[in-house]
């Protein structure tokens, strides 16, 4: 999907690569329509989860891969987005049903707004929290940043668990309206991907990559490193909040136990496997891992292999994924795509030997 840099003004040229991309997107749209009509509920859900994980993976990659900030509190921002969106879209009756232990605070009771504004507000809420957390925490060095963000993720979760009148505490919220349709999640995934591509090809994206590659040099070249970091953190939190909201409205149940470090780990896994610093890597990895996670569920169930029967081995799935992550990080640190983007030339290159070119030319 990467096009050669064009200098100067040129009319929109229908190059071979662009044509291929348009065809691919159209084919995918057809696939999505078919899926929506013909897949059974379970398969459709897996298909749509891929979209949500694309959003989440890209939001984390923006931070880790492109700006070089190692943040482990991602689940916290997702939680904020999920809860804000849920509280805004639930009807008063639904709220009353859920808050049976302690009634909901009055000012939240009667707010019910449509999905689109709700999800945007949820994203902004997460972005705001991200900004509040980021401003102090981004001054820290990488490993301290990791632990501090992990801490904040946990703090958010504990706060949600204890703020009974607002969030219904540990009981969580059930029966959320299923606003996350095939159309909405894949449009969201598409928009976020487009956003990332445009951002990374812009000067701001370059500035972020410069901050990642060498902070001191970036600062010396006139880049306000701190401001870039905070901006990246805030935007990443916005996207995480949107992802969390989509997740909530797909599963229709949210509770604090969903948003632990485990969730952050899953997304980190996707990002690392796909290649830190590659947009297409994250997209591909999100799809593959989501499908694999479901497909490998059989590992947790009793298996009937030809030669012997095994009992259900719960936990085997996560064992496999952990091993996968470690093998990937030890032997192929760059992940699937490294920090390069998918291009039709690359695909062609797999079949036809071509000369090598360096860099990630944008």
């Amino acid at each position, binding site marked *: 999907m990467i096009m050669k*840099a064009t*200098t*100067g*003004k040129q009319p929109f040229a229908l190059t071979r690569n662009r044509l291929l991309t348009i065809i691919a997107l159209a084919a995918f749209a057809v696939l999505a329509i078919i899926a929506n009509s013909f897949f059974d509920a379970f398969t459709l859900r897996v298909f749509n989860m891929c979209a949500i994980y694309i959003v989440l993976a890209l939001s984390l990659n923006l931070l880790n891969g492109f700006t070089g900030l190692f943040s482990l509190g991602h689940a916290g921002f997702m939680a904020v987005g999920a809860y804000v969106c849920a509280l805004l879209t639930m009807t008063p009756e639904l709220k009353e049903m859920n808050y049976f232990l302690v009634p909901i605070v009055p000012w939240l009771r009667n707010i019910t707004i449509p999905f689109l504004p709700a999800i945007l507000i949820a994203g902004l809420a997460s972005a705001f929290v991200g900004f509040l957390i980021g401003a102090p925490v981004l001054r820290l060095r990488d490993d301290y940043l990791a632990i501090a963000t992990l801490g904040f993720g946990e703090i958010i979760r504990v706060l949600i668990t204890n703020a009974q009148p607002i969030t219904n505490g540990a009981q969580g919220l059930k029966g959320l309206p299923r606003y996350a349709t095939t159309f909405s999640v894949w449009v969201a995934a598409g928009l976020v991907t487009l*956003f990332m591509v*445009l*951002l990374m090809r*812009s*000067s*701001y*994206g*370059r*500035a972020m*990559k*410069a901050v*990642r*590659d*060498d902070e*001191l*040099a*970036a*600062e*010396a*070249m*006139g*880049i*306000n*490193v701190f401001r870039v970091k905070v*901006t990246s953190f805030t*935007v990443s939190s916005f996207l995480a909040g949107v992802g969390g909201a989509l997740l909530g409205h797909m599963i229709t149940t949210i509770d604090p136990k969903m948003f632990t470090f485990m969730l952050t780990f899953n997304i980190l896994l996707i990002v690392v496997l796909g290649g830190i*610093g590659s947009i297409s890597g994250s997209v591909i990895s999100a799809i593959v891992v989501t499908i694999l996670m479901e497909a490998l569920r059989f590992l947790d169930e009793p298996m009937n292999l030809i030669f012997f029967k095994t009992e259900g081995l719960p936990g085997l799935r996560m064992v496999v994924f952990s091993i996968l992550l470690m093998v990937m990080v030890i032997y192929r640190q760059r992940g699937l795509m490294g*920090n390069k983007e998918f291009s039709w030339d690359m695909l062609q290159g797999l079949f036809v030997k071509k000369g090598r*070119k*360096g*860099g*990630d*030319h*944008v």
Partner: protein
Amino acid sequence: MLSTAHLTMKFGGLTAVSDLNLEIRKNEIVGLIGPNGAGKTTAFNVITGMYYPTEGKVLFKGRDITGLKPHSITALGIARTFQNIRLFKEMSVLENVLVACHMSINTGIFGATLHLPGYRSRESEARRFSMELLEKVGLVHLAYEKGTSLPYGQQRRLEIVRALATKPKILLLDEPAAGMNPQESRELMDFIRKIRDEFDLTIFLIEHHMQVVMGVCEHMYVLDYGVTIAHGDPASIQKNPKVIEAYLGVD
């Protein structure tokens, strides 16, 4: 153009720079020399805002810039290179230079992402400017190569060109000839003189090999353990006994 007044930098008990009083005039090429560990890079770091001096001031074109953040100092017109080349490892030659143009593009994240017309024109202007710079130093044919894949001497040039892209009034070069043989060093010094003339610059450079800079500097400061032991034109520096002692046979 650039001057420091009683600049002192202490790290705990260690005094890296002591009472440094520089005066650099427009279009001069001034050298800061001294044996290893003399405090030269530290002086650079203080001037460019990476450290806050323990005492003293830094003045640029009459204005007190002590304590400003490095990116603000760059925006005012002071650019620098690093002793161990700090190119952006994952980026191409062109991108390295374009990063330095980010300051002038300055449209904020939304304008940039949406590729609004205001952004687009500035971006293409920046590209044109960068390519022009690369052409002037003979690197334009490598524009899309990965920056760190270049041979050492060209990497150095790239770093200098990148600094030039910030449109500075004064350029601080930290040991630009490090790792070069005498022939390459001479070429580099010619290059420095050329860019000084072409871009109307002032140059302040660090070097610890005296011979390299003798021919190119008009004025030199000699540092030893943070203390200025001599300053003046190259001829008098060469004969200065204190300087000879500080180097003690080291070339």
